[in-house]
C-alpha cells in the first residue's frame, strides 16, 4: 500500500465503461493519414514522395532535433498525398500529413536483426532504438520518450504510470491484462536504459484483473507493483510522485530534477516492442466510449485510421454527438469525427449533447478549493480572472493551475472555471510580452533621450571650449599688439630722444 496521499481530487463514477475489455483488432484501413507533428515539438521531415511505394513499418518522416519523433508507415501501399489536413484540435487547426493508400497486403518492411536480450546493447543503444521507433508519451502528453529519458541524469526511481485515473478510459487496463509480461519486461528495459535500480508500477485499486496479471508476470524484486486508491488526478505526474514518494515538486521544477522518471504504461509497451523486436510504433489501443455509443470498447488500431471508422464499430446512436478526445476531464472537444488516430489518441468519447446547465453566480461556497489538488482558491482566481485583474490572479498562484477541472465539476453554480483560467493565463502571457515590448520601447526612448542630451552637452562643451580658445587667442593677439605698439612707442621715443 502507499504511504502518502494528496489533498483534494474527486471520485468520479465512470459512467460508460468499455464493457468488453478484450481488445478488438481493427483491420488495417484503406487509407492512413499520418500526422507529422505530435502534441509537442516540431514537425518531422518527410523522406518519401508522392507516388512512392511504402511498406508497413517503413520510416516516412524523420525527426528533426530532440522534440519530434520518427513517423512510420502504418500500412503498406502508395503515398498519395503530402498535404495539410485537419488535425484533432479544438480550434480546427491544420497540420501536414502523409496519406497512404493501402495496397491491401499490409506487407511489413524487413525488420533488421534483433536481440531479445536487451543487455547485449548499451543503454545508449537502447535509447537510440526507442528514438528510431518513434515512441512518444502515449498517455496523452506526447513528449518524445527518447528526449524524456535522456533528459534525466541519475535516475533513482522509475515510475510506470498505470493509474489511468481519468474516468472512462480503459485502454491501459486491457493492455495490462493482455500484455502484462511485455510490460514487466519493458520496465526492465527502461530501468536498464536510464540506469535506475528501482521501479514502481502504480495502478489504481479498482483494476484488480490487471493488477493480478502484472503480479503474476513480475519476477523482478526491483519492480514493485503498487495499488493506489482511486481518486481523480492521482495519475497526474507530480501528484503521482507525491503519492508514491512523498515528494512535492513545485511548479517550474520537473520530475527529472528529483531523479524521477515517469512513463506511461502504454509507452512502456511500445518501448518493449521497439527494443526487443525492432518494431516501430504503428498502432495503439484506443477506447471508444460515451453515452451515445451502444458498445463501448477498446480497439487496437493502426495509426492514421479515421476516428469515424472506429467509432462506427461501437454503434453510435443517430442523435447529434459531442466528440471529446483524451479524458472526460482533461480531454478536448473536437468538432467532428473526421480525424486520424494519432499516437496520443487514447480515448474517444462520443456523448449525447446535454442541455447546458445554467450558470449562476459564485457564492464562494468553497467546494472548489476543497477539491483543488494543487491547493489553489479557484473562487478567488475566478473573481480576478473575470474582472481581468490578472496581476492579482497571479498573486493567487494562477500559474500553478494545471487545468484538471476538479473545481469545474463540483461547482454548484456550474461556472466554467477552467475556461476563465486558461483565458486569464493567455491574457497574462500577452501582457507579459506587451510589458516586455513597452519596457524595450521605453529603454530605447530613454537611450535616445540620453543620446540627444549627451550630444547637446558635448556640443555646448565644445562651444565653450572654442569660445575660451578664441578669447585666449584674442587676449594673446592683444598682448602681441600691445607689445608691438609699445615697441613702436619705444622706437619713436628713442628716435626723438
Amino acid at each position, binding site marked *: 500500500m502507499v504511504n502518502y496521499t*494528496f489533498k483534494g*481530487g*474527486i*471520485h*468520479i463514477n465512470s459512467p460508460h465503461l468499455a464493457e468488453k475489455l478484450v481488445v478488438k483488432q481493427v483491420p488495417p484501413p484503406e487509407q492512413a493519414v499520418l500526422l507529422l507533428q505530435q502534441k509537442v515539438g516540431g514537425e518531422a521531415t518527410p523522406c518519401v514522395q508522392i507516388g512512392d511505394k511504402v511498406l508497413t513499418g517503413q520510416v516516412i518522416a524523420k525527426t528533426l532535433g530532440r522534440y519530434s519523433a520518427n513517423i512510420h508507415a502504418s500500412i503498406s501501399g502508395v503515398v498519395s498525398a503530402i498535404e495539410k489536413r485537419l488535425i484533432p484540435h479544438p480550434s480546427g487547426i491544420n497540420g501536414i500529413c502523409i496519406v497512404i493508400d493501402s495496397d491491401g497486403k499490409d506487407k511489413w518492411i524487413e525488420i533488421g536483426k534483433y536481440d531479445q536480450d536487451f543487455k547485449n546493447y548499451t543503454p545508449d543503444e537502447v535509447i537510440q532504438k526507442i528514438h528510431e521507433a518513434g515512441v512518444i508519451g502515449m498517455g496523452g502528453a506526447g513528449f518524445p520518450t527518447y528526449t524524456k529519458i535522456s533528459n534525466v541524469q541519475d535516475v533513482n526511481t522509475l515510475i510506470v504510470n498505470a493509474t489511468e485515473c481519468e474516468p472512462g478510459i480503459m485502454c491501459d487496463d486491457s493492455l495490462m491484462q493482455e500484455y502484462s509480461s511485455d510490460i514487466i519486461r519493458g520496465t526492465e528495459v527502461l530501468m536498464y536504459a536510464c540506469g535506475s535500480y528501482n521501479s514502481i508500477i502504480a495502478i489504481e485499486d479498482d483494476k484488480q484483473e490487471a493488477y493480478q496479471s502484472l503480479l503474476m508476470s513480475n519476477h523482478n524484486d526491483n519492480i514493485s507493483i503498487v495499488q493506489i486508491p482511486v481518486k481523480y488526478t492521482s495519475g497526474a505526474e*507530480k*501528484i503521482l510522485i*507525491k503519492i508514491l514518494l512523498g515528494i*512535492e*515538486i*513545485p*511548479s517550474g*521544477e520537473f520530475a527529472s530534477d528529483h531523479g524521477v522518471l515517469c512513463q506511461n504504461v502504454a509507452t512502456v509497451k511500445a518501448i518493449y516492442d521497439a527494443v526487443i523486436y525492432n518494431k516501430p510504433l504503428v498502432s495503439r489501443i484506443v477506447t471508444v466510449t460515451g453515452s451515445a455509443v451502444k458498445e463501448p470498447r477498446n480497439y487496437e488500431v493502426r495509426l492514421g485510421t479515421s476516428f469515424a471508422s472506429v467509432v462506427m464499430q461501437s454503434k453510435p446512436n443517430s442523435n447529434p454527438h459531442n466528440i471529446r478526445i483524451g479524458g472526460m476531464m482533461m480531454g478536448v472537444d473536437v468538432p467532428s469525427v473526421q480525424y486520424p488516430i494519432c499516437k496520443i489518441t487514447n480515448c474517444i468519447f462520443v456523448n449525447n449533447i446535454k442541455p447546458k*446547465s*445554467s450558470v*449562476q*453566480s*459564485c*457564492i*464562494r*461556497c*468553497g*467546494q472548489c*478549493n*476543497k*477539491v483543488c*489538488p*494543487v*491547493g*489553489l*482558491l479557484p*473562487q*478567488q482566481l475566478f473573481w480576478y480572472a473575470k474582472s481581468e485583474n490578472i496581476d492579482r490572479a497571479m*498573486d*493567487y*498562484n494562477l500559474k*500553478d493551475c494545471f487545468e484538471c477541472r476538479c473545481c469545474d*465539476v*463540483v461547482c*454548484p*453554480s*456550474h461556472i466554467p472555471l477552467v475556461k476563465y483560467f486558461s483565458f486569464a493565463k493567455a491574457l497574462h502571457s500577452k501582457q507579459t510580452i506587451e510589458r516586455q515590448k513597452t519596457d524595450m520601447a521605453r529603454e530605447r526612448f530613454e537611450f535616445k533621450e540620453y543620446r540627444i542630451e549627451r550630444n547637446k552637452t558635448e556640443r555646448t562643451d565644445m562651444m565653450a571650449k572654442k569660445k575660451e580658445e578664441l578669447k585666449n587667442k584674442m587676449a594673446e593677439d592683444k598682448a602681441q599688439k600691445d607689445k608691438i605698439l609699445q615697441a613702436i612707442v619705444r622706437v619713436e621715443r628713442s628716435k626723438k630722444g
Partner: protein
Amino acid sequence: MIKMFDSTSQMMRQVIYALILGIGATYFFLGWGIIMQIILAMIVAIVVESVFLKIRKLPIKHAISDGSAALTGILLAISIPSIAPWWIVVIGVSFAIIFGKQLYGGLGSNPFNPAMLGYAFLLISYPLQMSTWAIEFVNFGQAFDVIFNINHNPMIDALSGATRLDDVKNQLALGKIMSELNAYSVAQSWVNIGFLLGGLYLLARRVIFWQIPTAFLSGIILTAFLLSMVDSENYLPVQNHLMLGGTMLGVFFIATDPVSASTTPKGRLIYGFLIGILIVVIRTFGGYPDGIAFAILLVNITVPLIDYYTQPKVFGK
C-alpha cells in the same frame, strides 16, 4: 469527495430546511408572529429582487430560483422581534436586498451579509420597535392585529417586553449583580437549541464547513470565560451567552453565509473567532441589545485581507 450539490439553489434549500427546528421552537413559545413575518419577508424579498433585476435587465426567473433572496428575507424575519409592525420587515428586507446586495452587483458580489445590513439599519433607525419582543405565546388574531396595526390590542402590551439579554444588561447597569438576576430563558434556550440542531444538520450535509461555527463558538466561550474570570458578578456567564439572543442562529446560519465570509479554510477560523469575540464585547460594553449584526458586519470588512493572507499552501511550495 464527489460532487455535493447540483446547484446553488439546492444548497439554499438545505439551509432553509435546517431553519425549521429553530422556527418551530420560536413558534411554540412566542406564537404566530414569526410565521407571519417570514411569509411577509419572503414576499417582499422576491418582489424587490424581481423589480431590481428588471431594472438591471437581467433574467428574473433564473436569479430568483437560486433562493438567495428568499433566504435573506427569512433570516431577517427571524432576527427581528416577531411582533414588530409590518413596515419594519418591509423596510428592512428592501434595504437588505437593495443596499446589501443588488447595488453591489447581485448575489456573490456583496461584501456584507445582506440580512445583517438590513437588521443593523432597522436597529439604528427604529430602536423601539426593534427591542420590543413577545414574551408569551401570541395567538393568530393577536399577531395579525399587532403586526398589521388593524386596531391596537391592549392585550399586547402585556405580552411584550425586552429580551432577557437586554434585561440583564439594564439590571447590571442599575447596579445589580449576576447572582441576583435571572439570566435564563426557557424559550430562548429552546430556540437556540433548535438552531443548533439545524446547524449540525448543515454540517453533516456539508452545506457549511466546520471552521466558522467552531471558531465562532470558541471566540464566544473564551471571551465570556475571561470576562467572568475577571468578575463573575458583573459579566454574563458563558452558558447564558450561548443560550440567549440569536447566538446559534448567528453561529450556524448567518456567519456561515459564504458570500460575505472568508473563503479560505484558515481564514474561516480567523473570521469566526473574531466574530465570537466581538459579539461578547458588544453585548457587554455596547449600547445595543444584541451584538450579532454589528459583529458580523465589522468582520465582513476584513474579509479581503483575511483571504489574501490565509491562502492555502500551494502544492510543492
